[in-house]
């Protein structure tokens, strides 16, 4: 899984930090997302997917094939 974030889309909602604190943090000054791990371990995948779903600005992109 490869995680990317679009800082200028981020609205500092903090949902990603709640969902996956090992992968996302927020800047102190404006709350914009900080990506801690671009390639998180498999144990984080579910939490990262939740973060991407809950992001109110669709600012988190995951490069993985969705299970279908």
């Amino acid at each position: 899984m490869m995680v990317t974030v679009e800082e200028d889309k981020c609205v500092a909602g903090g949902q990603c930090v709640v969902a996956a604190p090992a992968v996302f943090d927020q800047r102190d000054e404006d709350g914009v997302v900080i990506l801690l791990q671009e390639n998180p371990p498999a144990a984080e995948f579910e939490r990262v997917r939740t973060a991407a779903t809950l992001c109110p600005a669709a600012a988190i992109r995951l490069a993985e094939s969705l299970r279908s």
Partner: protein
Amino acid sequence: MTADVLVIGGSVGGLTTVEALRAGGFRGTVQIVGAETHLPYDRPPLSKKVLSGAWEQKRAHLRSQVQLDSLDVEFLLGRRAVGLDVDAHGVVLDDGRRLGYGRLVLATGLTPRTLPGTGSLRGVWSLRTLDDCAGLRAELLSARSLVIVGAGVLGCEIAATARQMGLDVTLIDMSPVPMWRQTGPVIGRALSELHSAQGVRVRMGTGITGLLQERGRVTGVGVDGGAVIPADVVVTTIGSVPAAAWLNDSGLALDDGVLCDERGRAATDVYAVGDVARWSEGRIRVGPRLENRTNAVQQAVFVAGDITGARHDYRQVPYFWTDQYDVRMQVFGLLPEDADVRLIDGTVESRRFVMVAEQDGQVVGVVGWNSAKAVMAAKNTFLG
């Protein structure tokens, strides 16, 4: 055909339902019917970065074509649902087509309220869709004056964007302060000062008597007392109604939205999510419907889990944010107008603060300006 899951509504609620279904291992057939011709896009930027031109339209799209393809979902776009037969598990579209379903998810969102008799008047806009946004933007680029009728969240955001585009902006509302219903008097006063300082004419406590026109084009807004405010363009942001009129004869319970139980079920095999849905009360006492994006996503995830048999927590701490000029405001919970609001961090003057709202000694809401981390900490402390 009969889809295992049929979703009516191609915006964030409908799309998220499908994504959560697939992520949960759902392998059945899925169709999404969307009234607009666009693939799913995000609405919050329409009053801000897309309207201002900072973003091209396509940046508002929620997913790439590749991502949508991987969902294995059939989109039927530019089509409206016009009827539902719950017993027969069927939906009729405006082209006469009939779609069957195993489970149905209603995610049709809202329709903006308009001023009576202004439908054909040029220069008068609502802002709900990408097409509205493109049309309004095109007019703002050559206009000098804009009057916004309705100072809710959307009206305030459009005022800020248009002012920053250099327009002469007037913001009118019957309420005593902007965003009165959403954030109450204390925050409203600060917003009023924010907009005034930026040069917006903030006309609160003002009713409108009608729109003036010349040869089919708006020229101004008449207000109480007989004055006329000239306007090249008028935007009405006077609220919205759930897009549920097509369900009137369906037998579903409708009352300011589609009434659902606490799991989002409106009838056997029928769910509703997002702005159109009115779920039974959760842990926090909520208003009749939550018109915000976060709620649409949370309900969609929950409903997908209900369909696949997964267990998700559904916690409804309402959340919304708004960006106006250099202020990013975030609100968790509710700020009723009669709540007792007190400052816990920062100062109003610095436009960086956190306040909590209390009712009967209970914290019911937390609001922050330019304090993303502090407002989240306060939310965790007071609202769980």
